[in-house]
């Protein structure tokens, strides 16, 4: 079997060039999806029978929670690839995924709190899902803190990759135990296996928002990774050329 494609994936230069080409289109797609989803969800979807308009925050809350968790697995996978195949690019992706994931987890917690006030009458409830989300945020903090604690970048990468993997093994255990600890929460509204219990008019804009968030996540991840690539590869010839070209362009614009 030919593995060259796999090793080409590991080349920061290749990644940089590919993202330069695709990023504008992806950003456009993310923008269109997010705008459509927001206008549709906030403006046109029907009101909830019990919660009125306050339910509309799910159009931010649910996609953010999805991505927060998916982002953790992506980070751990990137870390595992880095550990196994010693791929520099994959460590860079891991490192970039951590702050984005932490921000999304925070967004999910924040929107949850805002939603909680009208629904439960309090900003913070020790609900199972909120608590799990909080623990996920702590897991992200651990990875971030460990990453920056090492003077030696490689050790930092390896250590946080292992921690991300250990966290991945623990996430199901944490979720199950928190679930068990507190079963007083709303039943899951979206299940991949069964039909949604939400009304389709509410559900469709949510689906658009989730897709939009996925696109946005990829865009953000690419941007963070590109910065990381430039920083790490600053001594290489191609980054030097790139810098020279862009400074020429700036000079040209001034004249």
């Amino acid at each position, binding site marked *: 079997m030919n593995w060259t494609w796999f090793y080409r994936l590991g080349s920061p230069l290749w990644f940089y060039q590919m993202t330069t080409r695709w990023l504008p289109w992806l950003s456009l797609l993310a923008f269109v999806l997010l705008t459509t989803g927001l206008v549709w969800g906030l403006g046109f979807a029907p009101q909830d029978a019990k919660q009125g308009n306050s339910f509309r925050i799910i159009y931010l809350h649910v996609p953010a929670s999805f991505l927060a968790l998916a982002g953790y697995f992506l980070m751990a996978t990137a870390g595992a690839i880095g550990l196994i195949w010693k791929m520099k690019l994959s460590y860079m992706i891991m490192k970039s995924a951590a702050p984005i994931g932490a921000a999304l987890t925070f967004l999910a917690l924040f929107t949850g709190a805002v939603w909680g006030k009208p629904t439960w009458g309090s900003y913070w409830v020790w609900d199972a899902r909120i608590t799990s989300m909080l623990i996920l945020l702590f897991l992200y903090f651990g990875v971030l803190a460990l990453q920056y604690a090492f003077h*030696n*970048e*490689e050790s930092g990468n390896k250590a946080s990759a292992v921690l991300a993997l250990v966290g991945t093994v623990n996430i199901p255990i944490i979720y199950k135990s928190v679930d068990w600890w507190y079963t007083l929460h709303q039943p899951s509204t979206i299940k991949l296996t069964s039909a949604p219990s939400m009304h389709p008019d509410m559900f469709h804009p949510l689906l658009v928002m989730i897709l939009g968030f996925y696109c946005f996540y990829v865009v953000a991840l690419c941007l963070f990774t590109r910065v990381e690539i430039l920083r*790490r590869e600053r*001594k290489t010839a191609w980054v030097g050329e790139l810098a020279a070209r862009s400074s020429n362009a700036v000079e040209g614009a001034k004249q």
Partner: protein
Amino acid sequence: MGNPSLITIENLRFERDDTTVVNCDHLHLDAGDILQVEGPNGSGKTTLLRLLTTALQPCEGTILYCGKSIIECRLEYLSDILFIGHQSAVKLSLTAEENLAWMAMSQLDSSSVLNALESLGLAGYTDIPCYKLSAGQKRRVALARLLISDARIWYLDEPFTAIDREGVKLLERCMKDHVSSGGAVVVSTHQDLDLKGVRHYPILGESLLRACS
């Protein structure tokens, strides 16, 4: 081609955060060799020894032990080497005898442990905790391992630190005995060894290891 060398290094390279720390094109070590690795501080002497002991993995290149990669015959290789580093691995709350018995890690009888300590001039100090010993004496406890070990290759990182003149002589004699019985020694030190047939490997400023023997 005769028998493969005890240790052969091919194109060994080790990077730390994009700077090359060790870069060694070719280096070999035969039975009966004493190899002195020299170089300024920070030139990668310790890193080279750590690569040789498998504590660190190289970014590129191979190290062969009797013609086989040390990754493939790891356990066999590791049981044939002995490494004494900057930190002597002496536990301060244990006595010299306990420390040595632990480091020997085998069912050695206590008389040979005591003999080893005595020949390094530690008679009378064997049963007091090591925190009461001086720096040089602690070093001697660690070096006593050399007398009881049956490893073929010794890796000694700055073994003369804190050792007095008499101790240096003692250590040199140990090394001589070891190589004359078919062993090999790699030693990193700035001190001139009073031994015949020492090969020198200076590591130059830019972490380049060049043979000039």
